[in-house]
């Protein structure tokens, strides 16, 4: 962790007893798992204090509550009442939230308890979770590799079974990227589908609150708790939900996507497509021609919105920002209003065409990331004969959903030749999140992923047996 700021251990040092070895989860046991994991993973910025733990123990909801007894970590750009919301910055290191964000309130109301605030890239801007102030989060599959970001602390905590699930935010892929690198499920809702109240914005036209867990079922239960309620609500998945009277799912796939992937990622993606087809899904080829042009306008929006949002911070407290973030803010300020108008027009044009394309399929299947987890410090990735900047590759596939506002989910699908997880992404239609999760549930069952990292701190099975 170097000279980074260690997490404030608000009274968890003497935690004793309880826990997964007794067949249930508890705030105290979760606190102990955090304590045990922190030196290796660096997944948390702050953990719940004594008062918070005490208050959490008391109001456990009845077993009928959908998230009863779930331990949930929260990315540190989402407010948890009584705890700082640093957003990975020094500026807000001591900025204590006076109340829960709406999404946090929702999971608590469904019976979950909050275990702590997870590490992230500064302001949520980046894809590594290598924070200059709070340290680096390591991948539990291989501590020498990065975890992805910006919700990397949330992903590491879930993948290593420190907690059952986590909340994150996703602007350009910040939930799906680390989910892919750590072999878990990461869900980005349709834009606007979950309240962003109490969340530190980055690029508000693309920001969403998402969920990370080890199964689609868990993600779906969280979604049911945090989503905005329509006039009529639909039930969540049940593990053995009967779909016999439904048509088989149609999966869209653009083979040219694999030109942008390493051999490992291409192999795993092809296997997933083949498995889905063998299991009865209808795979239809689609051609996302705009795939070659959408990333630049996406990047302009992704830089210009934070630049406007944080211009006062840059002007008043530049000494508290890292050089990287200062540079990106300055770059974002360099775009003209004409650049922005053009980028926004592009987004409208792209989104309309993208959803027209999706109109015939239930979900578009892509790799989540063009490459698997790589050692810390890697800045270039070889694909074919060419070497690519890692930051240009990271959002290559996840940006499709971000710029269009579509829901998307990353599922673990296989291992690289060096034994690290590789994810696939399913992108659904706008505001058709439940359909997307139905497809994801089906694909998850087909793929049958059941591998967990070498380094774990809890036992998922006992949580299921609560």
């Amino acid at each position: 962790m170097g000279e980074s700021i260690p997490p404030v251990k608000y009274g968890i040092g003497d935690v004793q007893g309880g826990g997964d070895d007794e067949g249930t989860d508890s705030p105290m046991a979760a606190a102990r798992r955090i304590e045990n994991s922190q030196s290796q993973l660096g997944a948390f910025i702050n953990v719940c204090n004594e008062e918070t733990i005490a208050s959490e123990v008391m109001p456990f909801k009845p077993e009928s509550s959908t998230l009863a007894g779930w331990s949930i970590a929260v990315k540190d750009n989402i407010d948890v009442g009584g705890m700082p919301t640093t957003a990975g910055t020094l500026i807000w290191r001591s900025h204590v939230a006076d109340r829960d964000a709406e999404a946090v309130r929702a999971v608590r109301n469904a019976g979950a308890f909050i275990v702590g605030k997870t590490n992230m890239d500064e302001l949520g801007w980046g894809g590594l979770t290598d924070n200059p102030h709070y340290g680096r989060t390591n991948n539990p599959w291989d501590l020498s590799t990065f975890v992805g970001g910006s919700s990397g602390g949330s992903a590491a905590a879930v993948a290593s079974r420190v907690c059952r699930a986590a909340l994150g935010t996703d602007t350009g892929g910040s939930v799906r990227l680390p989910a892919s690198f750590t072999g878990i499920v990461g869900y980005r809702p349709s834009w606007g589908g979950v309240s962003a109240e109490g969340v530190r914005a980055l690029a508000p036209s693309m920001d969403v609150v998402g969920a990370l867990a080890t199964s689609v079922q868990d993600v779906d239960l969280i979604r049911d708790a945090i989503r905005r309620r329509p006039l009529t609500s639909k039930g969540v998945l049940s593990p053995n939900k009967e779909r016999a009277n439904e048509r088989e799912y149609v999966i869209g796939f653009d083979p040219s996507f694999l030109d942008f992937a390493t051999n490992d990622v291409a192999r795993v993606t092809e296997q997933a497509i083949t498995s889905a087809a063998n299991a009865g899904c209808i795979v239809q080829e689609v051609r996302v021609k705009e795939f070659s042009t959408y990333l630049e306008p996406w990047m302009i929006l992704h830089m210009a919105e934070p630049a406007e949002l944080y211009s006062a911070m840059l002007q008043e407290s530049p000494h508290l920002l890292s050089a990287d973030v200062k540079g990106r803010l300055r770059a974002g300020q360099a775009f003209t209003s004409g650049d922005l108008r053009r980028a926004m027009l592009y987004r409208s044009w792209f989104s309309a065409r993208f959803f027209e394309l999706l109109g015939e399929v239930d979900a578009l299947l892509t790799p989540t990331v063009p490459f698997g987890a790589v050692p810390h410090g890697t800045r270039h990735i070889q694909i074919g004969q060419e070497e690519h900047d890692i930051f240009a590759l990271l959002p290559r596939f996840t940006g499709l959903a971000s710029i269009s506002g579509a829901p998307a989910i990353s599922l673990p699908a296989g291992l690289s030749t060096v034994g690290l997880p590789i994810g696939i992404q399913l992108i659904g239609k706008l505001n058709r999140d439940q359909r997307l999760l139905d497809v994801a549930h089906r694909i998850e069952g087909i793929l049958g992923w059941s591998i967990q990292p070498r380094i774990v701190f809890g036992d998922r099975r006992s949580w299921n047996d609560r």
Partner: protein
Amino acid sequence: MRTMRTMRVSEQHVKPLKDGINMRFDSGDSTDAMGDHRSIDLGVPVDASGDDDLAALVLSLRSSLELWNPASAFGLPKSHHG
């Protein structure tokens, strides 16, 4: 954009499949939809922090977007005279 079609077995991106599966593969041309894609490298580091690098990044993104013609994309008539 709409080029929906069913996928062919034996495309290089699809592993050989068993007969009789419920996968509606049939014909389709072998167009290379990505044949006209540009390099995803932007010519400058995306995590650039030096002023020169950042200026180059901004210019690179701007010039890429300027290749896109919004009026044409949204189907406006080319003639601006009644």
